């Protein structure tokens, strides 16, 4: 592989460009990272990239940033992770800074205001369709506990205004308990099921 400073420079330029021109969220950017670093530069092999993507998606936070961190870390250790994450954050940071300068002035304009208000209903519809598609995925699992979590978390958040962090912690705890239960020494069935899930 090339000299470390060359790698860092290429890493910065690649992740910066990807971040600046990728619309459509984290999943898209991770796919483009694979194209760049696996297919084009051949710095990472295909299988390893799959692992890195899995890590980026399992960790909390934005997938685009997580993807940049794992790829940077893999290629050049901590300096790489730092360079790649800064390069990924920089474009949205600059764009939004610029927009916020104009935002309040534009919002006063009756036409812009009508446009943004209409778009608010559009955003509501986008979120509704995302929820519908994700919810369908959960229901199709035919796992009663998942359905219960879906209903319980919804009621907790909407009806009882329970803090979002508490809901996430509680459901994470349910996940820990269930995984421990499935992997308990006597659970042949449970272990079998878990193995099947892993193989998927």
């Amino acid at each position, binding site marked *: 592989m090339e000299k470390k400073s060359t790698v860092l420079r290429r890493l910065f330029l690649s992740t910066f460009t990807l*971040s600046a021109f990728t*619309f*459509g969220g*984290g*999943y898209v950017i991770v796919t483009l990272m694979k194209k760049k670093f696996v297919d084009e530069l051949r710095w990472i092999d295909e299988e390893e990239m799959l692992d*890195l993507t*899995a*890590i980026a998606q399992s960790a*909390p*936070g*934005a*997938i*685009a*940033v*997580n993807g940049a*961190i794992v790829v940077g870390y893999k290629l050049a250790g901590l300096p790489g992770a730092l360079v790649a994450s800064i390069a990924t*954050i920089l474009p*949205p*940071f600059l764009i*939004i*800074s610029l*927009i*916020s300068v104009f*935002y309040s002035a534009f919002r006063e304009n009756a*036409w812009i205001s*009508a*446009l*943004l*208000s*209409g778009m*608010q*209903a*559009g*955003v*509501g*519809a*986008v*979120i*509704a*369709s995302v*929820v*519908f598609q*994700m*919810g369908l995925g*959960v229901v199709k699992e035919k796992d009663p506990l*998942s359905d219960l*979590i879906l209903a319980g*978390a*919804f009621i907790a*958040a*909407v009806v009882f205004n329970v803090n*979002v*962090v508490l*809901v996430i912690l509680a459901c994470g705890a349910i*996940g820990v308990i269930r*995984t421990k239960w*499935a992997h308990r020494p006597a659970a042949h069935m449970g272990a079998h099921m*878990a193995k099947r*899930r*892993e193989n998927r």
Partner: protein
Amino acid sequence: MTILALFLSFIQIGLFSFGGGYAALPLIQSQVVDLHGWLTMEEFSDLITISQMTPGPIAINSATFVGIKIAGIPGAVVATLGCVLPACILVTVIAKLYLKYRNMAMLQGVLHALRPAVVALIASAGISVMVSALWGEGAVSLSGADWKMAVIFLICLVPLLKTRVNPVWVMAGAGVCNLLAGVISGSLPLPF
């Protein structure tokens, strides 16, 4: 003090948003709108709209936007750093553990239980956005609702659920619909 509050808020947003994409919405709303009142629900909806039309993750966009509004450029830098700090630490830790043990059964078990919860929380954020679209900052009542918004919402659902159209176009269409409705009903002044 505000800078510290921004930093701590966005650390929580970065730490607890599992699943990417819209998963951060309920957390941002809870911290930024409900808890600290840094943005109104309308500004938050605008922020989601802007995020859809610009590159970059919504959590980073929110951190920059809220940071600048509350404490200028230093605020934006601090909020954005807070937002990515948990990921920087956790991603490297998970990567180390993963490369060592090659077994993520526990992590996968936790994520599996979190997925339905995240869907429910995104739904709850979506409801807040719609309440704001229909009633603005006013009280929720049948007569006070802006039913034009409900119609635009329903029209938008059709292409979103039936086709693979890019959501940005649907949102832009929704904005134009409302603009035209304003011009036709005469509530919007013509610029010429």
